[in-house]
């Protein structure tokens, strides 16, 4: 029982990293969903946006520009998070391009598609057997699944 308790304690300490390791293993995305990235921006910068960027819409360029122009006025939380949020969105978008590379064989051989029009082969990639781990990972990173 004592041993069990101490194991539990240790687990409590390391479980965040454990949880993420677990997530990796089952092949879930290494990128952040658009919803999570947007929520991060709203949570860390909502008040800052209302105070300093009123009238600016959720436009990656304009909002980032406004926030960086007002860096001095931002809350520490916002200052440390806003670039991270926009980078996360960007990473998720760029991940779509990686699918053509990671899934080239599958797109051509299994889905008789073209890597020039990757998005048309996505439903096939997801529902077809024999797709490589790399490809699945790329598909997940792009948020297609």
């Amino acid at each position, binding site marked *: 029982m004592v041993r*069990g308790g101490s194991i539990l304690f240790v687990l409590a300490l390391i479980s965040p990293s454990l*949880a993420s390791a677990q997530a990796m293993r*089952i092949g879930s995305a290494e990128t952040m969903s658009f919803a999570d990235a947007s929520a991060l921006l709203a949570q860390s910068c909502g008040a800052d946006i209302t105070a300093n960027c009123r009238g600016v819409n959720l*436009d990656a360029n304009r909002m980032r520009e406004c926030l960086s122009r007002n860096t001095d006025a931002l809350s520490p939380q916002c200052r440390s998070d806003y670039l991270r949020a926009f980078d996360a969105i960007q990473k998720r978008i760029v991940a779509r391009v990686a699918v053509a590379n990671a899934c080239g064989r599958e797109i051509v051989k299994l889905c008789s598609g073209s890597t020039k029009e990757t998005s048309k082969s996505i439903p096939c990639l997801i529902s077809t057997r024999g797709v490589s781990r790399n490809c699945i990972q790329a598909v997940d990173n792009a948020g297609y699944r």
Partner: protein
Amino acid sequence: MPAKRDLRCIGLLLAILAATALPRAQAAAPEKDEIISQLGRFDTAPELDIAALRQKVIEKSKSRSRTEPEPSKRPLIVPELVGLPTFTVDIRFDTDTPVVRPESYQTVGRIADALVNAALLPYSFLVVGHTDSNGRREANVLLSQRRADAIRDVLVNTFKISSKRIQSLGLGEEQFIDQAHPTSAVNQQIQILTIAKLPEQSEQPPQATPPSAAKKKSAKKK
């Protein structure tokens, strides 16, 4: 079976951690699967000339006829939209502007996540703005159009959803979400409608069986 019990403890711990780590939702964003299941039930595409519809709505909002019915009795201006797969969503804007409030960022991001999902990739969509019957009728059409445009712009510019897949239309108070209660705030919501299947999407793997709904499910278990 101490190993087994430890495993169960890990599971429990992870669950507790996950629950406490979740941010407190301000306005609960819709679930991605919910959006996908609503918008994915597409059957047949109606003939829609969005530019012409915009014009029609603006003209209607200017009508000053004496026989004009009260808001709750107005005939639908675009009845073609009624049977289409529709997701109705509460997005908060700054008053009288098309500026999305931060509390709704997550919701817009969630819509983008759904539109990127494989299940919805083959389709194109219409973002429809509405208003309640408070305020001037013409102004309401303009505001709803600007709001629908703003959502389309965020989806296209910020989340890089192909502009070919999204159009926008403001219906103002010419077609209510809840016609029985024209002044209700329910009518300020945004609707996303599936309006077409993208062309040349029919490529199927020749040797593999076509991906049926059942097969999709089994592939998802991973």
